[in-house]
């Protein structure tokens, strides 16, 4: 049994950053994301016998995602889920940066804000595909959707992200920045 635990840790602990990143993008607070990830690892351990090899990262991220939604449902009932505080979480741009660095930092900031404005279902699919590199088939398994729906959801998520991103950039232009 000790061996089993060690095997589990060796297989899944390397994906801890990915698990935390996903949870952190679904819920806004660090401590909540940590609780979700911890719970997800315990769930994964319980379901470890059902894991038939393959993409362990995708398997674990599916559990993290499901745990996050259970957590949201549980906590939204007693209104503990605090909405995202944009000002608090926005990146601070240092004024002594060079012009090029400023442009990069601004782009990062706008992207961050644009992502935060997306509905969770769009945000999670962007993260799972663009950042975590899940294939369409793995996305379908993780999200419990047919591949065709994954295709259209990802497409809609990108269009929406593009719009939000463009909005920030045009407001910058309007403000003469």
């Amino acid at each position, binding site marked *: 049994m000790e061996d089993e635990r060690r095997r589990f840790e060796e297989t899944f602990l390397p994906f801890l950053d990915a698990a935390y990143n996903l949870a952190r993008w679904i819920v806004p607070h660090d401590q909540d994301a*940590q609780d979700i990830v*911890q719970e997800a690892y315990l769930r994964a351990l319980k379901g470890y016998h059902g894991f038939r090899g393959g993409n362990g990262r995708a398997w674990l991220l599916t559990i993290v995602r499901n745990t996050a939604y259970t957590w949201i449902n549980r906590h939204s009932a007693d209104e503990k889920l605090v909405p995202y505080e944009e000002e608090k979480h926005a990146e601070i741009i240092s004024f002594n940066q060079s012009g090029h660095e400023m442009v990069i930092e601004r782009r990062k900031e706008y992207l961050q804000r644009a992502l935060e404005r997306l509905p969770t279902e769009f945000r999670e699919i962007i993260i799972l595909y663009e950042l975590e590199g899940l294939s369409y088939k793995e996305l379908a398994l993780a999200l419990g959707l047919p591949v065709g729906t994954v295709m259209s959801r990802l*497409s809609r998520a990108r269009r929406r992200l593009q719009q939000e*991103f463009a909005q920030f950039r045009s407001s910058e232009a309007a403000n003469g920045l």
Partner: protein
Amino acid sequence: MDCDEVRQCLDAYVDGELEFTRPSEIKTHLAGCPACQLAAEQIASLSSIVWIDMEVYKAPRELRSKIRTALRKEFEPRFAWFFKYGHSLAYGAIVLAFGFALAWTWATFAGNKNQ
């Protein structure tokens, strides 16, 4: 394929997720349609912006050790009894086995004598 059909699966095409003959049909369409070509470029460009610029949250250090502790605890209750009573149980099993062997020997020899 017309523009509407192409747009429906353009993301999957850019992502290299389309199967069968459709990629070549889309490729042909893109070669003659600047608007769809631009849309494909925008998809690819957004993907790379997200990949390069998106904030990636790293797990805090203490989370790893918290998870390790929780995983260990998960194994503890089921096996704690073994470490606590394991030796006594093993001795008990030996005594029982020895007792059975003795009884069997006695029964066998006593049976033979009576015959």
